[in-house]
């Protein structure tokens, strides 16, 4: 158990905090040494699972309300106030549904696929800091870890498509593979722009770099910023980079107009065709959690991360310095920013019609990839020039 203890000790402050709370048990001599870190890890995983499922619950509700109101109808209205309990009712329904596995399916892969999809997004979620002083894995290469882990969901999707033993599912899976290969490049490349500006791969460090300026004007997105060191020249390539990241994220998370893998009208939900009940909902939880995660990551590198007027009030040297409230407000800030990003994604979804598969490929290879490379080139030259002139 020594190895495990070492590994657990390396984890971030989130588990440390839980561990300290657990160490204050009424009779600590009865608790074995290895139990406390292990329990802390389990509690941490529970928190992450809760975040993922709450994301999916609120996300589905928001999606239905936004789509309803864009089409001049109400959306769910019956369960609770404006249907806010609808996802709970849906969850109960999905749990009670028959768990079908098709006769010709590869049973093992069919069962593993949803779990793989969900576990990869859980792993990626662990890298996301929840507050400046509460995080699970403070990875120095945070963004790359998130990109790597979220793209493993593709393996799960391809598994699901193959194991279903259905033409539609296989088509959906192949489209997903093609789409992810096409859009992973522009996503990674255009994320290099903020990385160059921030000078770090770590999310909380990037957020700390955008402090000051009433919590708004220090963000990296502004061509001219006003941060902790007064006025500073930003990078004009950040705005196109944000647009590129947004489009690439739409394609990565299989959102319309890039929802080719699960086209309802052509492929009868693609790789989801043969799934039912709770397994089916795992894919949806992954989709909404991935949307939230990508939006939060984008907000960390473009839109200030933890910095907002809310946190600016409680931060060190602000109006009312308070560490606890600062952390709470930081959590609220990233949740709000994540859901605002999700809202824009839904808005785009209910605005644009679905692209054809060749148009998706054209968009990825002919437009996004060269443009993101151009963006990186421009941003790099700009930063170099700034370094040469300003020093």
């Amino acid at each position, binding site marked *: 158990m020594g190895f495990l203890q070492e590994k657990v000790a390396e984890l971030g402050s989130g588990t440390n905090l839980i561990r300290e709370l657990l160490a204050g048990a009424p009779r600590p001599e009865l608790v074995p040494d290895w139990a406390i870190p292990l329990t802390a890890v389990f509690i941490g995983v529970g928190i992450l699972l809760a975040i993922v499922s709450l994301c999916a619950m609120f996300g589905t509700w928001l999606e239905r309300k*936004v789509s*309803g*109101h*864009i*089409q*001049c*109808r*109400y959306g769910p*209205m019956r369960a609770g106030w404006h249907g806010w309990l609808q996802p709970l009712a849906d969850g109960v329904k999905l749990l009670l549904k028959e768990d079908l596995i098709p006769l010709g399916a590869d049973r093992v892969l069919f069962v593993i696929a949803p779990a793989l999809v969900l576990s990869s997004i859980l792993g990626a979620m662990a890298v996301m800091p929840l507050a400046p002083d509460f995080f699970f894995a403070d990875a120095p290469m945070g963004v790359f870890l998130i990109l790597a882990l979220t793209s493993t969901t593709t393996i799960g999707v391809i598994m699901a498509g193959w194991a279903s033993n259905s033409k539609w599912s296989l088509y959906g899976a192949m489209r997903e593979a093609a789409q992810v290969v096409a859009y992973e490049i522009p996503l990674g490349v255009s994320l290099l722009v903020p990385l160059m500006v921030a000078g770090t791969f770590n999310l909380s460090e990037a957020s700390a770099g955008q402090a000051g300026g009433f919590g708004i004007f220090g963000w990296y997105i502004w061509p001219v910023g006003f941060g902790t060191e007064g006025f500073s020249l930003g990078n004009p390539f950040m705005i196109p980079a944000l*647009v590129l990241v947004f489009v690439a994220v739409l394609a990565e998370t299989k959102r319309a107009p890039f929802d080719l893998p699960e086209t309802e009208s052509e492929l009868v939900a693609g790789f989801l065709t043969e799934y039912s009940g709770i397994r089916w909902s795992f894919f949806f939880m992954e989709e909404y959690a991935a949307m939230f995660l990508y939006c939060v990551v984008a907000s960390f590198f473009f839109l200030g991360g933890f910095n907002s007027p809310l946190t600016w009030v409680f931060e060190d040297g602000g109006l009312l310095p308070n560490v606890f409230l600062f952390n709470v407000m930081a959590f609220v800030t990233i949740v709000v920013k994540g859901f605002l990003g999700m809202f824009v994604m839904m*808005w*785009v979804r*209910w*605005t*644009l019609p679905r692209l054809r598969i060749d148009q998706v490929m054209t968009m990825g290879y002919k*437009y996004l990839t060269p*443009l993101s490379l151009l963006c990186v080139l421009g941003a790099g030259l700009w930063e170099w020039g700034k370094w040469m002139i300003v020093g």
Partner: protein
Amino acid sequence: MVTVSRYFNNVWKSFWTTMVGMRITGRYLLQKPITVQYPDERMPIPNRYRGIHYLEQEKCIDCLACARACPIDCIEMDAVRHGKELEWISFTLDYQKCMFCELCVYPCPKDCIHMGTEYAFVTYDRSEFKHDLLSYKGMSRDAKIRMVDADKKKAEKEAAKAAKPAHEEAAESAPEEGAEDAGAE
């Protein structure tokens, strides 16, 4: 150079048209929904809407004009006549057949059958579509009172008729007795 400018023109156009589209959908998003929460609130119905019929049973005289006018014979009525008053047994309209043509409304001499505004008619069984329009069976209280009054008058008249020859034949006491009898009733 043309290719390059076309390329960037495409990029700009796709960005701009998306913005235009999002402006439109955003406007819809902020506008009040046009749908209504159906069972709780309903859309206003035009006055001349032809829905489920309703019958002013008090006025109806069981003349069968509507039943005769009906092109598919879906109206059936049954009543027993007590003098001028009616004792209702049934007035059914088979909504499996009815085509809501409103032809039964026009011939009614008393203007007592109308097309209503109710359109939702759901049953658990087909036979229940044979809908009874009567609001009460038998006779109404007013009709009963009227009938009793009419019977009384009839009895009075008969008594008067019976008394006349008696008056002519017998002595003075007979009409007084007849008047007392009528008063006692």
